[in-house]
């Protein structure tokens, strides 16, 4: 930086640490809440250091879905809902990547009838968040008999063009000489796609994977409407449903353990793939 002053240096760190503490605070409280007993929570204030019930609470949530007798207790093991969320998130991420790679390849490397029309049709889907057309989409899924199914959770959410546009933008930056060379060597289009395009798109694939995985894992409204069977619930909606309207009767240690379990996979993914995630986010501009 321009000036170098000792106090300014420490003030900078102090400011950042305050920010980090503010950001961590609610999650720390949730972590502490997941290690203490129900009594520790319902007689405030909650201690600020973890208690001894970590293993009990997590085992209880994971394999039994919480103790009986609480209004919000689902009695479906949380591990089942983690699995549902994982299937949904992977399904959305992979499904979106496949259809987007194929169509971006077609748009960039071919000239075909109705190309402009098809392009605009896909382009328009960028404009409308799923929340806006919830009811009609719910009806479509119901009519197709896909309520309470993984297909019903996955397909409506891959109908958006974000990934298509990211791949298209990236393909545009690949030098034309690549295609020329490939064509001269008599390389067929799909061979070019699999042997050249996919390998050089690896970092972009990883970036889009992270963003789409988070998008899928964190869905709330859609799974809430499309699933009525407790066995098909996703973890995010399950945590919400563990808190009944008169929220004092929730079994808070189970709520917190489940909330921690719901946060953990996306946080692990974002931190372990930080480089790709940051790149993907900054380049996608959404």
């Amino acid at each position: 930086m321009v000036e170098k002053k000792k106090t300014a240096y420490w003030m900078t760190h102090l400011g950042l640490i305050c920010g980090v503490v503010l950001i961590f605070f609610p999650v720390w409280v949730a972590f502490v809440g997941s290690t203490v007993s129900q009594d520790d929570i319902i007689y405030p204030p909650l201690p600020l250091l973890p208690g001894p019930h970590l293993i009990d609470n997590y085992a209880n949530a994971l394999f039994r879905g919480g103790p009986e007798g609480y209004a919000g207790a689902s009695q479906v093991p949380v591990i089942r809902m983690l699995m549902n969320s994982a299937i949904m998130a992977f399904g959305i991420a992979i499904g979106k990547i496949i259809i987007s790679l194929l169509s971006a390849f077609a748009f960039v490397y071919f000239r075909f009838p109705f190309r402009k029309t098809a392009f605009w049709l896909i382009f328009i889907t960028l404009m409308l968040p799923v929340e806006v057309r919830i009811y009609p989409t719910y009806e479509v899924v119901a009519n197709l008999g896909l309520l309470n199914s993984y297909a019903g959770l996955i397909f409506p959410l891959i109908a958006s063009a974000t990934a298509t546009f990211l791949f298209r933008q990236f393909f545009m930056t690949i030098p034309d000489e690549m295609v020329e060379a490939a064509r001269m060597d008599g390389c067929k289009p799909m061979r070019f796609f699999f042997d050249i395009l996919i390998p050089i798109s690896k970092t972009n694939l990883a970036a889009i994977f992270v963003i789409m995985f988070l998008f899928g894992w964190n869905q709330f409204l859609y799974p809430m409407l499309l699933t009525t069977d407790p066995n098909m619930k996703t973890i995010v909606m399950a945590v919400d449903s563990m808190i009944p309207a008169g929220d004092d009767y929730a079994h808070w240690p189970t709520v917190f353990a489940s909330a921690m379990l719901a946060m953990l996979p996306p946080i692990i993914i974002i931190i372990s793939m930080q480089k790709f995630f940051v790149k993907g986010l900054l380049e996608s501009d959404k």
Partner: protein
Amino acid sequence: MEKRVFFKGWKLPLLLVTPQLIISAVFFFYPSGQAIWNSLFLPDPFGLKTEFVGLDNFRFLLSDSYYLASFKTTIIFSVAVTISSMLIGLYLAALADRLIKGSGVYQTLLIWPYAIAPAIAGVLWLFLFNGNIGLVSWYLKGLGYEWNHNLDGDQAMFLVVLASAWGRISYNFLFFFAGLQAIPKSILEAAAIDGASFWKRFMSVVIPLLSPITFFLLVVNIVYAFFDTFGVIHTITSGGPEQSTTILVYKVFSDGFVSQDLGSSAAQSVILLILVGVLTVIQFKYIERKVHY
């Protein structure tokens, strides 16, 4: 921008775009068309038949004081979430940018809340401010301040803004930090040699250079506040008390699914559709301009 070199043939590319077109048709165009179509009809209370009413649903909405109140709520909520999360994000980014070493560590420590679902963020903050057992509300009571967001609309609004902005700081931090890192240090050094203080440099050099990113973030954060905060609202207040936190998206849901008022819900979807359309056009205008830089 178009490629000069491409492959021959038209059957293969049509085949390649087919999956995306089919999925878009079934889960996007048909439902969106349905939303527009339904907005022109009024189903009878028993759902047995529907009557064509033209634009009556819209006329009714625009004269419905609850709907107009929801508009106002949405604007207050979106502006509060956008401004607060952008200011904190910019502040932290400016601090991290001052560091020569260690800014990467802070980046890791600051970005992970992006991974947390709004509904989970809602649950965490709901507990902290729970009227009987919440940690923050307990200390507030100790200070003589009574917290009950189930009764007090302003407190409820404050809480949903806090929970929504909290999860959004990471995103704004990341973009501002990248923007700040891209500013050539020589420009700042030149300003410093001319005697500009840190604050002066920040206001008259850094802020103007960040304006494209700031504009982009404004649009994206408003879209976020409009749509992605459904989970926060649903977990913390369910739109209450007395609709004081019912933002437009929440009203589409509660009128459509809870009250089964389908005509009105569809008309609200169409109004939202127009709003998003406008925001998207603004966003693309901006991106186009950025390409020419």
